[in-house]
């Protein structure tokens, strides 16, 4: 077979083109490998290096806390609790926070005789040492569970459990959940033994929680039956009742009513957008949440964090002609010295009632104009006279 010059040129040219294409393809593949390797290295660096910033993409939603644990706000609120008194069937534990943040618990029997003491010595934010001493002076010391934050409520439960287990120095211990117990002890939830809990907060506020069982209640949330065990927390300021909250563990419903401040309920359906109940509420949480509602709402009311309605020009001009009848300030109109008292609830309920039925000051003497407004007025007179008020849906 003979090959002409022209054909040879085409052959050489073709080979060169093929070689060039192979070279280009090889370079492209190499480049892609390098890019992939670089990306992989970058990704590896991001996950491996402790100094790398972990990014949260937009729309990723709420960053969840460790499952089963309460968030930072819970511990911040807990740090404001001054004293927790936990009553069990056979003992009473009182935990207090020392000025340096350490926790001290004293266990007594129901007659007040001392049974033991527990002290939590906080080393840093992650570490703490638990010291327990019996009434006979025998003591033991252990390192706290890594990663958990000791609270006053926990200190009471831990002290009670150690006393109840009759723990002696040298006995081998193990963690059962968050509570230390003698090794191979039968499982037991000390929280179930709590009969009554008193949480003392700043400013004379106290939340007292106890367990009860109620029959069918349809008046708490309209159209819904709540029954069974309930944790009832009553909030007082200097001994004066200012609110109540109920936790129904079976129905998983939390209901609250703080006079003149806030009322409402939460259940799994309402909490769906944030993942439902992400933890198991306990008796202490119910008290702390009730105190938190009071604290946050009071601050909002005092600092005006909630947008206030301001009248426009036309409304202001109308006000010059008719200045009085529509006036409805927050609190007790004409009696603002009562704003900080239990009567505030009566005034706020009356204001709500007026707003709902469109009543004005005229409603007092134009009684024939609206029976609903007459109801509002009778309700506030009854409330001022010592009645419980219009809204009283709570158990106990």
């Amino acid at each position: 077979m003979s090959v002409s010059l022209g054909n040879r040129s085409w052959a050489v040219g073709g080979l060169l083109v093929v070689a060039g294409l192979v070279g280009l393809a090889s370079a492209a593949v190499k480049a892609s490998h390098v890019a992939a390797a670089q990306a992989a290295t970058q990704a590896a660096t991001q996950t491996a290096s402790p100094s790398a910033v972990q990014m949260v993409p937009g729309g990723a939603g709420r960053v969840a806390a460790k499952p089963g644990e309460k968030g930072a706000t819970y511990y911040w609120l807990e740090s404001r609790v001054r004293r927790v008194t936990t009553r069990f069937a056979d003992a009473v534990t009182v935990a207090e926070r020392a000025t340096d943040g350490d926790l001290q618990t004293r266990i007594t029997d129901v007659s007040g005789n001392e049974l033991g003491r527990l002290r939590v010595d906080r080393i840093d934010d992650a570490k703490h040492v638990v010291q327990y001493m019996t009434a006979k002076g025998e003591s033991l010391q252990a390192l706290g569970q890594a990663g958990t934050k000791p609270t006053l409520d926990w200190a009471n439960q831990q002290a009670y459990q150690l006393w109840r287990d009759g723990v002696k120095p040298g006995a081998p211990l193990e963690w059962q959940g968050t509570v230390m117990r003698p090794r191979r002890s039968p499982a037991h939830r000390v929280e179930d033994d709590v009969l009554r809990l008193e949480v003392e907060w700043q400013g004379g506020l106290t939340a007292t929680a106890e367990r009860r069982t109620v029959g069918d209640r349809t008046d708490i949330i309209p159209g819904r039956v709540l029954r069974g065990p309930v944790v009832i927390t009553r909030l007082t300021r200097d001994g004066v009742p200012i609110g109540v909250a109920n936790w129904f563990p079976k129905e998983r419903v939390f209901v609250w009513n703080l006079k003149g401040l806030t009322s409402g309920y939460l259940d799994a359906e309402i909490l769906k957008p944030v993942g439902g109940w992400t933890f198991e509420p306990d008796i202490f949480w119910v008290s702390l949440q009730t105190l938190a509602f009071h604290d946050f709402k009071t601050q909002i009311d005092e600092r005006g964090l909630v947008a206030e309605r301001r009248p426009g020009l036309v409304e202001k001009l109308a006000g010059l002609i008719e200045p009085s009848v529509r006036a409805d300030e927050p609190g007790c109109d004409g009696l603002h010295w009562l704003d900080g008292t239990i009567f505030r609830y009566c005034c706020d309920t009356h204001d709500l009632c007026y707003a709902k039925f469109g009543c004005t000051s005229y409603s007092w003497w134009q009684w024939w104009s609206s029976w609903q407004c007459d109801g509002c007025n009778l309700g506030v007179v009854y409330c001022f006279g010592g009645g419980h008020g219009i809204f009283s849906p709570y158990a106990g």
Partner: protein
Amino acid sequence: MRRATALAALGALTFVALHVLLMATWQTWFHGGDTLPPWFMNSARGLAVGAVVFAAVGLCVSARDRNPAVDTRFVSAAWLALGALVPMAAVLFTMRGGPGTLFPIAIAIGSGIVFVSAAAGGCLGWAFGRLLRRDS
């Protein structure tokens, strides 16, 4: 009747004087702020001053009363409160923001406070009077 009218007028004048005092010193003494208008029941301190003023008036009226019976002090206090009621209602209805949604309760409580204060002052005056008469 003249005495009753005089006492009612005294009650009214006392309330007007009290309100003028509140208006003049609302920001400084009573820390009333801009949100609430000057009104003796809009501030606990204002209420205390009002009670003391009417107790003092009741005491003075009682000191001038020659009747040894304590009942007359309560009657005097009632007339003083009735007199104070008129300017009280007038002030409540004309003040900035109007009487508010609880004005009948505000008037009832205000009148009650004036009556109790004046009666307390009257009883105190009566007790002092008895002591003084016993000594002399």
